[in-house]
């Protein structure tokens, strides 16, 4: 009665033909899969991206073998082992094959060990410390990234000093400027929630973790080295994306990595002009404010047509000077504006729920703002309107008075240039 028990399916010539066809299809199919590898990945713009893609190539080949093995056996089963119509009988009583079970335990185990070793090697190679990082003009400098809802801010600690002996810091907003061959090492800090700094073309990603500001936050690091991409025109731009949910504007928290062909282009087109602009700021507070406001992350939440901002998380700044005097009873337009920036928690415009980030002299990194910067930004905002509520005739006194009343601070409306130091004047004259 146990006639068909433990009888394994026998090998017939037909099975050999089927196996051969299956093998052929698999080889062609895997080959076809791998041809897509470059198409489904962004350009290889960093040294790291090449080794990551090579690893992916291996994963696709091994994954393809598994895919065709399983789907092929499945397909063969449903074609050849379907019950004939009217056949109500059972299949063979075949309970297993210990040898086969050992084989399909050992081989996958071997494959994953191989993949783990391979991945480990790629990882060690990509994270190996570089001899020099962030080399600019023969010096290693620090490049910091600040993430705040919903914008990236990049700052270059140039190591050069201005006339007051303070270090010149370039703020390049949401753009990271670099050049081919520069070993980039970023120090990332968040101002609020967790963000994740992702440059798809570089295959790198790192979370920004909230830490205690009193102890310098909780910096994380990210390293990559841009390389030349074939048929690319330089300077080339690659997107930066936020990959960790951070709130309302998560999807538009983006930026760009600008890669220059070599260091001299980088210096000529970005670095030196930026330093020059810092050393020679316009004396007019409105022009100064227009530059400054773009160094902060205001654009991540506000709309302002004159600067082509279009975010709608916070209230629009179009024509703000026409409304600023009416928002809070008892506050002049100037007082309202300065308090909205430094004391943003105190008042929320009706119809909006999200709390604006805090700016001021006590804030760190990208949110730090001194009284002079506040003065210039307010002066700029006072020009955004037609029948402005601001006292534009007397802005040099009205805004400092508002800052004095609100925060008890004096403003140097000459931005330190009244000291009349020789160096300052000369530099200005050269410009």
């Amino acid at each position, binding site marked *: 009665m146990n006639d068909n028990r433990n009888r394994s399916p026998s090998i017939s010539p037909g099975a050999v033909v089927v196996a051969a066809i299956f093998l052929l299809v698999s080889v062609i199919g895997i080959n076809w899969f791998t041809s897509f590898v470059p198409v489904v990945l962004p350009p290889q713009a960093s040294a790291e991206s090449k080794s990551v893609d090579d690893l992916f190539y291996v994963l696709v080949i091994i994954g393809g073998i598994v895919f065709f093995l399983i789907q092929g056996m499945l397909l063969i089963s449903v074609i050849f082992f379907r*019950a004939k119509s009217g056949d109500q009988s059972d299949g063979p009583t*075949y309970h297993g*094959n210990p040898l086969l079970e050992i084989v399909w335990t050992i081989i996958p185990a071997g494959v994953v060990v191989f993949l783990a070793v391979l991945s480990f090697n790629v990882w060690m190679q990509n994270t190996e410390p570089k001899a020099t990082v962030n080399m600019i003009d023969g010096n290693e400098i620090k490049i910091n990234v600040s993430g705040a809802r919903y914008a990236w801010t990049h700052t270059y600690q140039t190591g050069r000093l201005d006339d007051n002996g303070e270090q010149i810091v370039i703020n390049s907003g949401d753009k990271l400027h670099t050049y081919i061959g520069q070993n980039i090492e970023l120090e990332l800090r968040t101002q609020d929630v967790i963000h994740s700094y992702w440059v798809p073309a570089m295959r790198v990603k790192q979370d920004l973790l909230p830490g205690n500001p009193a102890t310098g936050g909780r910096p994380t690091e990210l390293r990559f080295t841009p390389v030349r991409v074939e048929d690319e025109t330089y300077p080339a731009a690659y997107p930066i994306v936020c990959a960790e949910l951070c709130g309302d504007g998560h999807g538009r928290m983006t930026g760009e990595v600008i890669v220059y062909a070599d260091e001299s282009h980088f210096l000529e087109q970005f670095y030196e002009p930026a330093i020059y602009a810092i050393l020679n700021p316009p004396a007019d507070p409105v022009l100064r404010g227009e530059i400054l406001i773009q160094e902060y992350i205001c654009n991540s939440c506000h709309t302002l047509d004159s600067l082509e901002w279009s975010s709608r998380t916070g209230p629009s700044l179009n024509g703000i000077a026409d409304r600023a005097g009416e928002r809070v009873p008892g506050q002049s337009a100037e007082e309202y504006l300065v308090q909205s920036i430094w004391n943003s928690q105190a008042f929320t415009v009706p119809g909006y729920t999200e709390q604006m980030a805090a700016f001021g002299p006590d804030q760190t990194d990208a949110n730090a703002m001194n009284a002079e910067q506040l003065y210039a930004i307010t002066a700029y905002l006072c020009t955004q309107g037609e029948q402005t509520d601001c006292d534009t005739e007397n802005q040099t006194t009205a805004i400092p008075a508002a800052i004095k009343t609100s925060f008890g601070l004096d403003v140097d409306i000459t931005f330190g240039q009244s000291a009349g130091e020789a160096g300052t004047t000369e530099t200005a004259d050269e410009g």
Partner: protein
Amino acid sequence: MATIAVPIGAQAEQPGAEAVRRPALSEYLRWSVDHKIIGVQYGISSFLFFLVGGAMAMAIRWELLTPALDLMVSGSAYNSLFTMHGTVMIFLFIIPMWAAFGNFVVPLQLGAKDMAFPWLNAFAFWLIPPAAIVVLMGYFVTPAEAGWTSYPPLSTLFSGDGQTLWALGAHLLGISSIMGSINFIVTILNMRPEGMTLWRMPLLCWAVLATSIIAVMATPFLAGALTLLLLDRVAGTTFFDATGGGDVLLWQNIFWFYSHPAVYIMVLPGMGVLSEVLSIHSRKPVFGYRMVGLSSMGIAFVGFTVWAHHMFTSLQPELRIPFMITTMIIAVPTGIKMFSWLGTIWGGKIRFTSAMLFALGFLSMFVIGGITGVMLAALPFDIHVHDTYFVVSHFHFVLFGGSVFAIYAALYHWFPKVTGRMMNERWGRIHFVFTYFGFLFTFFPMHIVGMLGMPRRVAVYDPAFTQWNQLIGISAFVLGFSSFIVVYNVIHSYFRGPVAGANPWRALTLEWATTSPPPVTNFIDDPIPYENPYGYGTEAATAYLDAVDETFRHGGLASSSH
């Protein structure tokens, strides 16, 4: 083979058992300690939540048809949409849906009259409606919008009251899950009939046992994390606030210590279903029964050691390597199951029933989720695709291609036992075709947009990805439509389907050795299990099945019951 003569106990000596009465529909709305009623209560409420979560998914895909924000009023509204989609699908659909099948089938497979603790069983179910109300009430305040993972400080310092309600609701669901699981463990270990050793137990019971062990061990960690989150939100503590000495990674560690094993809570019962359906509908024993059962336990154990692969971009770099290795190892027991299932159908006599189609669909889709799982474990590659649509695609291949396909297979397989009527096979096949291709074209392209640079959880995206997202969106609408086919089939078949009889699939497990639907006490007398739950193809098995048919020939569902 002395048992052939009287294979199913004294029932065989009671010919002409009374016609079976189906419970009135109103009984499902009341408190009941009958595991069969509770199972259906779990099943119907979970399926309703599946439709709710599915409607949310449709809204998500509608929003993503264009790169700009259009359907939703704000990014926050979109964020609350996918937060609720995830929460509803995981905590209110998949996990309770497995409690539905576990409740209905496991005591029957064990030949038991009910679960070990019937009152606790009912209590666990009745925690779900209030929990669901608490979670969904967030829509009347500020809805939770930090994702189902709810990472602080977004979920603490930057979220509204809906987040508090979310945490309270999840707490209640966790309690329900723990109580249900304790009940399963006690039932499976203590209430097996004489002669059914652990090694002769149906594989669904093995899978539910492994699942329950995971749930009992892991869910308390979720409870701990949620308690800390609630305290941070309402009591001013700073467990996750760095300015007060807390640490945001604390949440990620505890949360994933639950939530990664929770993936196995969601998929292991589906694997149990697969073993049943594939064996019965290809008329062949499960290949390598012991290894299939043991691999469930292997997955349960290794599943506790992989949680930090969810933190590859936030964890200290030197800690990432060990988690990469454990994550790769877990592919081995999963592979054993895949190969054993192929060995099961290989050489069999496959019946292409709707249940079998969905089980085969599981095999062909789940393998893709497994392959991308190994790719994601490879740390350097994961760094690129972490938190992108590649990951969204991966876990939908596991949880939809895996769990949902298995749920459909289970539905078509056990519906006759639950209602006494067969489902319509033609509509079942149409349902399968729409689901299979809708699913494939919804989720496979997500791998590609993810690799190309589209992060997950965004309402606005790079216009370069528009066409991909439109393909995904249209396929998703087809997939969404397919669920109405099964709704129609269930309702139609409940009233008009052909009468099933006790054992329409000629299966050897004990739930088929009683009437459909079973009487209140499940069995008229203690049933005697066949020596091997999957021992198809022997004369002894055929004799046993014939005896079952003979016993219940007159005991089917009374055709006048509707």
